[in-house]
């Protein structure tokens, strides 16, 4: 059962899909962000000093007993409702018995045949605009285990380690495990479906406010089950279970890799071993973990130290009333109200700017202006600072109201784009609001038409050759004249108005004014 690091044979994805139909099953663990643990009053802060958030209960000391966190149950019900699940009117916890050093009681308090919610679905949107419905088998409550740190080995895994350290801060943090029914029919889109499902689930729990859903911090973890069956077959093949696939990209890659690996095994006449596998982010392969069979026996039985949970219909309905709009539907609604293209919307979503742009529009900016500033100027500076837009804005004190105000200064004709960027510099330097900065720096478009006309006359007179070209129909040559006029106006002219005036003077085209 030692971990093998031998790279296994795979066959190309396209060939694999030509012969086999992939079947997926995803088990996603979501850590709830309750203030205290599932069965005791310990804090749940991430990254605290090891073993500083523990007590007799979560350490499993002899005699200690669990007491259920009501808030955790409410979060579980809200997740169930958001996934269209039925909420059990009566359910219990069960003990899942197995030995492991980071599990204080050597049983995990979980749910077995009586999950709090079951039989739901989640529609996920794919790149091509189509929708795939993922059927949810169950979403149940359980407690997290401690965390083992293996010291002395080359890989950080237990194999080869000289000793292990255990941090029980995580032990007892509430988890919701969301299990899909077998996902069939996705074909070559299976990796994309898996990724889109996990992304959609992440968006939902974040919108519910029940979890940080940070895959990088382990507050959302994904196990990927993959099996193949020959096309046209009606019986599922043997599955592998790839544990702790901890980014959206890895979910997609792990599914793809397992499809290629299974196909190679099957094509060579072999049979797939039912086992857990480890995903290696760096090399993009999975390696064999522990052989797992259906005979694995956790000796589940109802947890006698907890009383059954019987959420009333009133409670369930009051929680249903707190559900936020489905994130996917909400995005579609906002995209249409903002008038963004699919590409523009995807950029905004990927940059995590949906909420920010919503706030900016609510503060009075046009959707186009809001997007231009956040995805443009602010994103560029965030990128230069090596961070994401939202945390960057927060760190430099830039708010949606600032952006809306700046955008208002432009659309009202007070500032042009170049002046606006100057104003930004001032806002970022902490000089005040955009209006305060513009006032302090004396930034204001020249509104005196006499001054503009004077500058235009002067530049035309000084550039007779260019003026002739423009008169002869080479309109693009006017750019050089506009630049000089703007220079005359010390940058504080309205470029569009200048352009219109030049063209009117030279070609007789109607002036904007």
């Amino acid at each position, binding site marked *: 059962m030692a971990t093998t690091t031998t790279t296994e044979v795979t066959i190309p994805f396209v060939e694999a899909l030509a012969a086999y139909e992939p079947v997926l099953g995803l088990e996603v663990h979501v850590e709830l962000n309750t203030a205290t643990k599932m069965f005791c009053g310990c804090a749940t802060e991430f990254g605290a000093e090891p073993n500083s958030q523990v007590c*007799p209960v979560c*350490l*499993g*000391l*002899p*005699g*200690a*007993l*669990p*007491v*259920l966190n009501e808030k955790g149950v409410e979060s579980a019900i809200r997740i169930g409702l958001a996934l269209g699940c039925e909420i059990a009117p009566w359910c219990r916890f069960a*003990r899942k*018995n197995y*030995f492991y*050093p980071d599990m*204080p*009681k*050597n*049983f995990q308090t979980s749910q077995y045949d009586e999950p709090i919610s079951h039989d739901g679905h989640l529609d996920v949107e794919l790149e091509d605009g189509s929708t795939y419905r993922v059927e949810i088998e169950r979403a149940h409550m359980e407690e997290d285990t401690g965390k083992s740190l293996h010291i002395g080995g080359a890989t950080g895994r237990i194999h080869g380690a000289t000793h*292990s350290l*255990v941090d029980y801060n995580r032990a007892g943090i509430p988890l919701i495990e969301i299990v899909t029914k077998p996902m069939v029919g996705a074909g070559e889109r299976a990796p994309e479906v898996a990724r889109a499902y996990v992304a959609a689930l992440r968006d939902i729990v974040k919108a519910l406010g029940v979890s940080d859903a940070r895959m990088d911090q382990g507050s959302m973890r994904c196990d990927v089950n993959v099996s193949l069956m020959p096309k046209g077959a009606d019986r599922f093949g043997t599955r592998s279970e790839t544990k702790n696939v901890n980014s959206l990209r890895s979910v997609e890659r792990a599914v793809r890799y397992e499809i290629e690996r299974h196909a190679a095994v099957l094509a060579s006449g072999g049979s797939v071993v039912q086992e857990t596998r480890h995903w290696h982010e760096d090399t993009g392969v999975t390696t064999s973990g522990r052989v797992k069979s259906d*005979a694995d*026996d956790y*000796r*589940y*039985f109802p947890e*006698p*130290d*907890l*009383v059954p949970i019987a959420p009333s219909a009133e409670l369930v309905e009051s929680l249903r009333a707190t559900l936020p709009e489905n994130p996917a539907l909400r995005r579609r609604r906002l995209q249409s109200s903002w008038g963004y293209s699919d590409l523009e919307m995807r950029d905004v979503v990927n940059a995590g700017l949906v909420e920010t742009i919503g706030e900016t529009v609510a503060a009075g900016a046009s959707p186009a202006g809001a997007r231009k500033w956040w995805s443009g100027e602010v994103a560029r500076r965030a990128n230069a600072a090596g961070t994401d837009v939202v945390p960057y804005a927060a760190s430099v004190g830039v708010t949606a109201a600032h952006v809306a105000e700046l955008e208002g200064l432009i659309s009202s004709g007070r500032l042009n784009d170049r002046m606006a960027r100057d104003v930004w510099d001032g806002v970022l330097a902490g000089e005040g609001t955009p209006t305060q900065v513009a006032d302090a720096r004396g930034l204001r478009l020249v509104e005196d038409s006499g001054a503009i006309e004077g500058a235009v006359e002067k530049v035309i007179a000084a550039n007779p050759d260019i003026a002739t070209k423009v008169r002869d129909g080479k309109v693009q040559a006017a750019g050089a004249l506009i630049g000089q006029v703007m220079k005359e106006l010390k940058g504080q002219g309205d470029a569009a108005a200048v352009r219109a005036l030049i063209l009117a003077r030279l070609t007789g085209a109607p002036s904007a004014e």
Partner: protein
Amino acid sequence: MTDLIRLTADEMADALAAKDISSLELTRAHLERIAAVDGGVHAFLHVDGEGALAAARTIDERRSAGEALPRLAGVPIGVKDVMATKGLPTTCGSKILQGWVPPYDATLVTRLRQSGLPILGKLNMDEFAMGSSTEHSAYGPTHNPWDLERIPGGSGGGSAACVGSYQAPLAIGTDTGGSIRQPAAVTGTVGTKPTYGGVSRFGLVALASSLDQAGPCTRTVLDAALLHEVIGGYDPMDSTSIDAPVPPVVEAARRADVSGMRIGIVRELTGEGFQAGVQKRFDEAVEHLVDAGAEVVEVSCPSFTYALAAYYLILPSEASSNLARFDAMRYGLRVWPSDDASAEQVMAATRAAGFGDEVKRRIILGTYALSSGYYDAYYGSAQKVRRLIYDDFASAFERADVLVSPTSPTTAFRFGEKMTDPMSMYLQDIATIPANLAGVPGMSVPSGLADEDGLPAGFQILAPATRDERLYAVGAALEQRLDAAWGGPLLDRAPTLASAFSGAMGSSYADARDGEGR
């Protein structure tokens, strides 16, 4: 001094309140008694003289300052070693917990401390409360004060022998299938298993979570009621705790009124299998209750026949899971089978060395009963039987206010007599187990000495859940009549230990100490 320790806890409380004695005097008298007789009885696994005297001093100071104190403030107590006590070793009678000092107090222990009862120490028990004789204690058995060559019952033999030998007026026991009641019966003392959920289990090291219940071990019914009142009541730290006031047990014990009460004799818990002398004392006790104004009805609880079988599936199942945490990783014993052993190998070696045979037997039984493919046939069926027993109680309590039976089928047996035959040991609890399966309260009070061996027999009273006060009404009424008939408490007829101890020094005591290394 000798007189002091022979008072009831109620009398001690009176003397303390009247400032006739101090808690320091009282506690010291009991520590002296422990020093004198516990070498022979071995009720204590750990004596905390210093802690008890410090607590006694504090109570005396508060009393002299004029503070109003709880009724039992200053009365010392012993605690079964299955309850977590902060700063005091807690071994559960097992090698695997040798040296473990809990960082927290059980809720029950907190209540004892808050009520000002000095804790004398921790009391011996069968390992993890598995047994009916204390012979399964990893630290050697406790001896019955009536005959040091006999068992004091179990698992709470230490608690019963402690109060029976005047080493404390009060003790805490726990009862999973009879571990308070059967020791009370065979030592001529009183023991109550309250309604499941009536006393917090937080800090009680679990044997079988759905069956365990802590309760009082005393010499009189009123003392049991006084202690019951201290330890009972809702605890938010125990999800199975009943959110209701403690039943009026003290009032019931004082009134001792059974007039018009319907006493149900359970047909399945009398007659065949019960020692003749035990049965005879039981029948006489029923007559006493009739004299006191009670009415007798016979009830049948047919499913009780299956109680023992169901119990020995449910208990090991829960125990196999509860005891899984003893794995050498965080506390207690750690055995290294080799220098480079893996965590799993250390766990296995530690459990092999740290658990006794009976514990291993039940872990294996429970693991088997919960295994996939066997679950329905064993654990599942046992739960169905449990439901039937619950129903049997419900219909019996429609016809009777309390149910009665002999507590234990026999008087105290000799050491070693049942060690090679677990089934005969298990049968000791045949009459006490149904109450645990149904969660109803039960009590054992002395019914007299069996003619054939002159040893104590017990009378069991069972009441509907949350109606614990009925136990005390019946128990106190019976106690009054029997004490009057005997011309004093039954324990007055026990051999005076000091002489029994010195007289038997050569044989039984030495033999018993040899047994410790087992």
